[in-house]
C-alpha cells in the first residue's frame, strides 16, 4: 500500500514538473528557434551564442573584432525577439526592465544614445546601413540582401 502510494505520488510529481517545465520553457524555446541575429554583410562574425549576445546587449562588449563599434537595435515590445532578449539574454521578467537598463546606463555614461527600437524590417534596413549594427529578428523576416543571418547557439 505504501509502495503504491509512493509510486502514485512520484508519478503525480513528475506530471506537475513536466507541466511546469512546459509552461516555463515552451515560450522561451519557441523564441530561441524562431529568432536569429542579423548583422551587416561586412561583419566577419560567423556564430554567436546567448552568452555573447548577453555581453553585447549588456554593453560589456562595445566593439567587434577589428574595432568597429557595436550598434544595438532593440526589438519591439511583444515580439518573439523581445521575449528572447528579456528572458534568455537579460534573464529578466519584463521588457520594461530592458529599457530601464539602458536608461540607467546613460546615467553611468556607459552609453550616450539609447539603442533604437525597430520592427524587423526597420531593424534589417538599419543593419544593412550600419557596419557595426546587430539586431534580433524573426527568422522568416531575416533573409534580406545586405545582411547576414547568424544562428543563435545555446
Amino acid at each position: 500500500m505504501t509502495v503504491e502510494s509512493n509510486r502514485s505520488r512520484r508519478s503525480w510529481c513528475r506530471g506537475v514538473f513536466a507541466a511546469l517545465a512546459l509552461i516555463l520553457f515552451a515560450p522561451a524555446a519557441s523564441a530561441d528557434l524562431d529568432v536569429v541575429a542579423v548583422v551587416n554583410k561586412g561583419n566577419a562574425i560567423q556564430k554567436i551564442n546567448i552568452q555573447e549576445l548577453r555581453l553585447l546587449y549588456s554593453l560589456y562588449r562595445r566593439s567587434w573584432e577589428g574595432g568597429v563599434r557595436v550598434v544595438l537595435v532593440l526589438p519591439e515590445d511583444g515580439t518573439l525577439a523581445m521575449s528572447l532578449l528579456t528572458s534568455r539574454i537579460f534573464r529578466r521578467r519584463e521588457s520594461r526592465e530592458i529599457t530601464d537598463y539602458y536608461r540607467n546606463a546613460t546615467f553611468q555614461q556607459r552609453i550616450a544614445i539609447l539603442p533604437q527600437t525597430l520592427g524587423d524590417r526597420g531593424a534589417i534596413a538599419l543593419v544593412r546601413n550600419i557596419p557595426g549594427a546587430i539586431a534580433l529578428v524573426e527568422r522568416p523576416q531575416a533573409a534580406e540582401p545586405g545582411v547576414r543571418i547568424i544562428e543563435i547557439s545555446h
Partner: protein
Amino acid sequence: MSIAVSLIVLGSLIGTAVAEPVGTGPTAEEVAELRRRIEELEGKQIDAEVQPAGANEIDPVLHRVAPSDWPFPPVTIGVLASVDYLFTDQLADGDGDSNHFSVGDLDLFLVSQPSDRFSILGELLLEFDSNNDTRTDAERLLIKYEYADWLSVAVGRGHTAIGYWNRTFHHGTFLWTTVSRPLIFEFEDEGGILPMHSVGIEASGIVETPKGLIAYTFMLSNGRGRNPDDIQLTDDVNDSKRVGFELSWRLSGLPDFAVGLNFMYDDIPGDPDPVAPRRKLDEYIGGGYVIYTGRPLEILVEGQYIRHHQPGSGYNSFGGYAQASYKMGEWTPYYRFDLLEIDGDDPFYMPVSEIVDTRQHSVGVRFDWTSFLTVKFEYQRVNSPGRNANVSAVQTALRF
C-alpha cells in the same frame, strides 16, 4: 508594398515565360538574375521606409536619420527629482522639526555623443536647504574617449571609483531602490566620510577572460581638501594627488554575480586653523563588495576601511552596508543594514558633527507606478551616540 513589387516582377517573369514557346522558358541564370533584382527592389523599398525621401543620410554616430543641419551634436536631457515626507521621533543635530515635506534635489542630466568614441556627460544639481536657499552644484562633468573595450579615458569631475554603489546609482533617488544612500557612501556635504567625487583623469576598461569579465579603473585626481566636504574643483591645496584603483570580476557562468575591490591613497593637507590646527595626514582607503543583481533578487554587500595616519598616531574607521531586495511586479520590498564605526580621535572627522558611530536598519517597499514615477515607503531605526530614533519616510521620485 514589397509583395506588390515582387508580384509585378514575378508577373513579368511569368508573362515572359508564357509568351515563350514551350520548352524555351527562362534559363536558370535568367531566374537568378530576376530574383536578384526582386531582392534589390525590396531592399531599396525597406531603406525608403526607414529613411524617408529627401531626408539626410543615416547619421554615422546617431545611427538614425540625421534630424536636420543643426551644427551641434544632439544632447539627451534627463531630469531626476523627488518630493519627500519625513517623520522622526527624535531629532538629530541640524533637524528643525520632527516631521516635514521637502523638495529633494533637482538633478539635470545632459549627455551627448559628438563622435563615435567621444561622449560628454554633464550633471547639474539644484539643492534646496532649510534657509530656502538654492545651491547649484556641477556634480559631474566628464569627457570620455573610448579607444576599445579594454581602454577608455575620462577627464573631468566624476564619481570616485570606490565601491559599487557610488559608480552605479549616482545622484537621483529614482535610481536607488531605497529612500537614501548607504551611510558609508553618503555625499561629502551630507556628512559622508569618503571622497565620493573626484576631479582628475581616469583610465578604465573591461577585459574578457575565460573565467569572466574583469573591469578595472585607475584614477589620478585632486586630493581631499582640509575638510571632509572639500571637493577641490579648480585647484588643489597641495601638490600631492590622490591615486586609486578598482578591480571587479563578473563570473562568466553567473554574470549577475560580481566581486570587487578598491584601494586609494591621498595626502590630506594640514589645517592651519588657529582654534583647531591639524597636521597633514596620509589617507589609505581599502574596500570591497559582493553583489548579486539577478532580478528579481538583488543583494549588495559592501565595506570600506579608512586609515588616517600621521607621525606617531593612526586612526581607523570602518563602514559598510548589506542590502537585499526582491522585485515582485511593481513592488520591491527591501531591507538594509548600515554600519559606521568612526575613530572618535580622528582629527579629520572630529569637526563634523554628523560623522559618528551609527547602526541603522531600514526596511521598506518601492512601488514602481510607471516607468518615470516611483513611490517608496521606508522605516528606519537609527542608533547613534545619544540618539535612538525611529524615522518614517515616504518618497516620490521622478525621472523624465
